[in-house]
């Protein structure tokens, strides 16, 4: 170890691997419906796609978690995104491809992908 910068580089890298454990941080939460209905409709690859995309882009402020059935089984796979300001967006009938776009547009740039939301699909 030669300098504080070198230590900092290791720390920044290592932080990615432990930030999941910090409680009460103001993360964006990506919640994938992983009940039987969700899994049957293909939620598993969607969950994996979110995890991979988030990792690829080094998004330290995003936590990807799962949840049970929220009661709109016909729209599964359902993904809800909670931002620290308390906003909730519900995406429905998700696919891995759609997940990649949501990460790029919504999580990185802050633009909700309206065409995937429940509002657009319930019409």
């Amino acid at each position, binding site marked *: *170890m030669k300098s*504080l910068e070198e230590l900092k580089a290791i720390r920044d890298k290592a932080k990615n691997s432990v930030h999941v454990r910090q409680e009460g941080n103001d993360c964006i939460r990506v919640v994938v419906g992983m009940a039987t209905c969700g899994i049957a409709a293909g939620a598993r690859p969607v969950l994996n796609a979110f995890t991979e995309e988030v990792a690829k882009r080094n998004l330290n402020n995003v936590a990807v978690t799962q949840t049970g059935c929220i009661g709109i089984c016909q729209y599964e796979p359902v993904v809800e995104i909670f931002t620290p300001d308390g906003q909730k967006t519900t995406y429905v009938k998700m696919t891995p491809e759609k997940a990649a776009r949501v990460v790029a547009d919504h999580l990185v740039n802050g633009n909700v992908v309206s065409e995937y939301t429940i509002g657009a699909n319930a019409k």
Partner: protein
Amino acid sequence: MYRSHVLVCGGTGCTSSGSQQIINVLEEEIKKQGLDKEIKVIKTGCFGLCALGPIMIVYPEGSFYSRVKPDDIPEIVSEHLLKGRIVQRLLYQETVADDGVKSLNDTTFYKKQHRVALRNCGVINPENIDEYIAMDGYEALGKVLTEYTPEQVIQVIKDSGLRGRGGGGFPTGVKWGLARMNDADQKYVCCNADEGDPGAFMDRSILEGDPHAVLEAMAIAGYAIGATQGYIYVRAEYPIAVKRLEIAIKQAREYGLLGKNIFDSGFDFDIDLRLGAGAFVCGEETALMTSIEGHRGEPHPRPPYPAVKGLFQKPTILNNVETYANIPQIILKGADWFSSMGTEKSKGTKVFALGGKIHNTGLVEVPMGTTLREIIEEIGGGIPDGKKFKAAQTGGPSGGCIPAEHIDIPIDYDNLIAIGSMMGSGGLIVMDEDTCMVDIAKFFLEFTVDESCGKCTPCRVGTKRMLELLTKITHGTATMEDLDRLEELCYHVKANSLCGLGQTAPNPVLSTLRYFRDEYIAHVVDKKCPAGVCKALLSYEIDENKCKGCTLCARVCPAGAITGDVKNPHHIDKNKCIKCGACMEKCRFGAIEKK
């Protein structure tokens, strides 16, 4: 990236309740369900709530599962880790709120705690240096080596008010300053990890849960006093701690955080382990250093103090594990931050190992000045079975007891000494009304008689004689003169012993005499043990009016002391009775009495 981390406690407490098996089953199950790329299993150090082990916590939800059994694992994996449905029935009940899961930090066990020395225990994987670095590890060492002079480091430690956590309470900064002032071609930094008090496991848990914190602090100490070599003297009976220290030292060397020219500052420092064979006296500083030198672990008189002539006759500082664990935080957050916690003369926090008659046995860290009542009733969850609090024993065989009348005293070094106990390294044994104080004093005396190294007469012979007198008292054969003689002997041993072991050995007797003299007198004069513990003073009798003659007691009596015909009252032969209490436990009519 892993979307979820499952932390399983790998401290000694949970390991003995089977956490390694939990980890094995968990990893297998995760693989079976195809989640091994998403879920990471991490073995951590102690969470503190050893009573509820094996403990498991799942992030990012922060779900706290307690008393997990291998059979529960498939359910946790398929329900929680795959489908996101928290397994409610396994949650620690305190964390279950009406509106979902409460944070662990809001439970009564953790709410009043303030974790400084234990901050990484149960949070990081102690076998991975990167995780320690992620928690600002080695930042303090880097800061010290690149920005501070050794004198500045010592000043910060002095200003913080940190005092030795091994029990003595000597100001750490002053100790370092003395070692700095003594010029020598070689100096040493030693760490006392020879935790020997019965019921104490603070240092063990820190070494198991956060070994790098100790290494970092020792390197900082080395820089401050001008030493290049450190030794950690750790008990061989702590295999997990030894293993994690070995891994930690290896990793720190690989990263160049130990070794030559650390942070390009020209400072060299390395650390080696020395394993103690488990003699209590080796926790005494001079005996510890004699043992590191390869000799038989016996103490020698001070002065010269270690700061002048210590290990290999060179200036040496010796600090306890918990003391070191505070150092990096003090450097990073400042002396003012540290001294803002605690009481006027005792700053910071203290870790206690809660044991005995209490619900939440385990490890707690509270600011100095917290009262015993808060620790026992709130954090500890009170005494089981509705029993009454009688006393708490602090400081192990060197300490004394705190009776119920002092339960509201704010705990710090000076207050405890004022009431005849001592901080000690932090073992806190809670006793309820069923505990005989004479028996407790005898228990600790037996320990010191065993552990006395035998070098000086007052300790070797004095403690033995004290134990004989105590045995006489518990057998009901002592006189009031014996009681006076015991007390007088206590003061002699205290005043004349060579080292701390002998000087403090009479404390358990003196403090129980001070607060529970009536119990001693009951043993001596009335030949009674009020708590019903001392067997020689007990007798079991059957109440003829209550006995139905069911013969159950006669069948369980291992000594064949109970006779009687079916459906007629039975009788206990007092000469044959070994007072095991088996009959009383079995009697369904409450006919057997202990007198």
